[in-house]
């Protein structure tokens, strides 16, 4: 319990630093928000008045404090670009899309990577192992826009199995939502699959050399059972760590996939907002992504205790 409280404190510290970094970076972004709002060709006094109204003339630290204190209450300000909606609302609309894509993509990658890696590791150096790793490097070297376009051509346009360029919210139609999300999730999965398989395979090969694997074999345990019950868990540290990092990263960076499939996710939202100089939206979105990142990785840290009992605190 104390450990979790300690972690929560750490988390807050990290978030504080991140928020400062985000604020500073966005402040350094080129472009004048007043121009972004009013458009060009107005008298300088009008711009100046608007800047004053937005609080842009206040000292930096004061502005940071204002932003942070309202962010803490969930108010991330208003978007500068019409329709000038609430930043929090915009993020709440885009975040579920991105999280769903990332989670589905990772799950698909995981479901494929685990058996592939186990097969590879069990027959390391064999023909199948070499084929799998060649295949993995092939998927790794195909850019995601190309893979995405191919999948759209084949499965959406050609075979008509999947709709394209639409998004159905999960609240409206769960089945339709999955149907729409599957193809983009596969594109994301392909990007992660090679790395997952490779990392797990290599860790498994190391684990399979352990004495306890030999001891399990000497008990007459079948090879597949040894792989699943003896080798997989001690081998999954790197994979779990990598998945945590991937999840945090994917939430904000599936821009290409979002554009390809016309999905209203975080990535495309941030790119558009940056282009328009909509700094409150960028600030808010980046802060939320940082929050997701930090929380996910804290969860990953806690999961090590499950993966390896030795890392748990000893209790009398």
């Amino acid at each position, binding site marked *: 319990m104390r450990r979790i409280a300690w972690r929560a404190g750490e988390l807050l510290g990290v978030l504080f630093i991140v928020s400062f970094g985000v604020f500073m970076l966005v402040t350094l972004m080129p472009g004048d928000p007043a121009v972004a709002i009013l458009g060009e060709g107005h008298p300088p006094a009008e711009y100046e008045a608007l800047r004053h109204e937005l609080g842009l003339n206040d000292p930096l630290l004061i502005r940071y404090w204002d932003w942070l204190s309202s962010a803490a209450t969930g108010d991330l300000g208003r978007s500068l670009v019409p329709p000038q909606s609430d930043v929090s609302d915009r993020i709440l609309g885009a975040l579920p899309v991105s999280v769903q894509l990332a989670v589905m993509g990772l799950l698909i990658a995981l479901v494929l990577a685990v058996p592939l890696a186990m097969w590879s590791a069990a027959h390391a150096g064999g023909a199948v192992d070499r084929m799998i790793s060649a295949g993995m490097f092939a998927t790794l070297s195909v850019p995601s826009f190309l893979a995405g376009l191919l999948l759209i051509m084949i499965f959406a346009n050609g075979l008509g199995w999947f709709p394209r360029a639409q998004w159905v919210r999960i609240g409206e139609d769960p089945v339709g939502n999955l149907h729409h999300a599957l193809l983009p999730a596969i594109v994301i999965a392909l990007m992660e699959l090679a790395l997952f398989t490779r990392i797990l395979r290599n860790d498994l090969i190391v684990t399979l050399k352990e004495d306890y694997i030999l001891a399990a074999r*000497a008990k007459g345990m079948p090879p597949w059972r040894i792989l699943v019950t003896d080798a997989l868990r001690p081998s999954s540290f790197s994979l779990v760590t990598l998945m945590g990092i991937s999840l945090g990263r994917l939430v904000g960076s599936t821009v290409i996939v979002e554009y390809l499939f016309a999905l209203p996710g975080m990535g495309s939202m941030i790119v558009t907002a940056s282009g328009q100089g909509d700094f409150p939206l960028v600030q808010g979105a980046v802060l939320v992504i940082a929050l997701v990142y930090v929380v996910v990785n804290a969860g990953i840290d806690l999961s090590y205790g499950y993966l390896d009992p030795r890392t748990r605190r000893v209790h009398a």
Partner: protein
Amino acid sequence: MGHEECQAVNILEVNDLHTVFTTPRGVMRAVDGVALSLRAGETLGIVGESGSGKSVLGRTITGLIADNATTSVSGSVRIGGHDIHALTQKARRRLWGPEVAMVFQDPMTSLNPVKRVSTHLTEALRLHLGLGRKDAYERAIDLLRQVFIPDPTRRMTQYPHELSGGMRQRVVIAMALACDPKLLIADEPTTALDVTVQRQILDLLAALASERNMATILISHDLGAVEGRTDRVAVMYGGRIVETSDTARVFANPVHPYAEALLASIPRIGDAPHTVLRAIEGAPPNMLTLPTGCSFAPRCRFATDRCHEEQPELRELADKGTTHVGACHFPLLPVHQEVS
């Protein structure tokens, strides 16, 4: 099947066993023509220096080391009448537990860190004996009691890292005994343990073996561990057995110069103070480039040209009519004992 088992008086019969590894650096004859047999309840010690092939022999006997791309096994191993190396993988696995079991050297690494003690014990019981979850659990607690682990119910829920080295080795032994094997191969079972715990573990193994009338092979480089706890002993050098007989006979009257030198290198409590401990000069042979003749010849005080050229075969050397055999052209006579 029944007929075959009736005929097999010996639990274990090993004939002309060779284990050859093809490594990038050359061909390694880790086990080079070993024959031995073991009856129910009998204990055989296999001693030798590191790299003499004793562990590989143990693993080849169980079939953990078997023919594959880089390993070639020839000769035969029969355990309870089953020709281990003629069986399929699957059939062999069915023998691992009920017929033959192994205790490994380092209990720190031979237990899975992420599995509870209970899982280590119950999984084999459920697999081989088809016990239900609850029966297997009861049986596992009983096994922990048999290896004298205090508070077994609590130990069951613990992870290996929560146990001491001696306790872990007891768990490893309980694991090996789970399915009542007829043959137990203990590969350096005490090497990784504290000296004070070594004796306890060895005595425990000996007690369990006699209680269950189980044939036991005790592999060790520690002659003290073997003396007094085994019926017979086989001394290995360069992948071969160079001398074997009743333990007492070998210890009292070694005929092979290597065995003699090995025995002379144990410090004895009865030795006079400041007695110089006799070590064996030179290093164990490089298994990749074994000499043509006797592999001990380069380190042997008595070696002649013949020793360097001609490989000695195992033959009766000492007292005629006993099972005391050695592989030496110029065996030590009992006289040597008295002189030294």
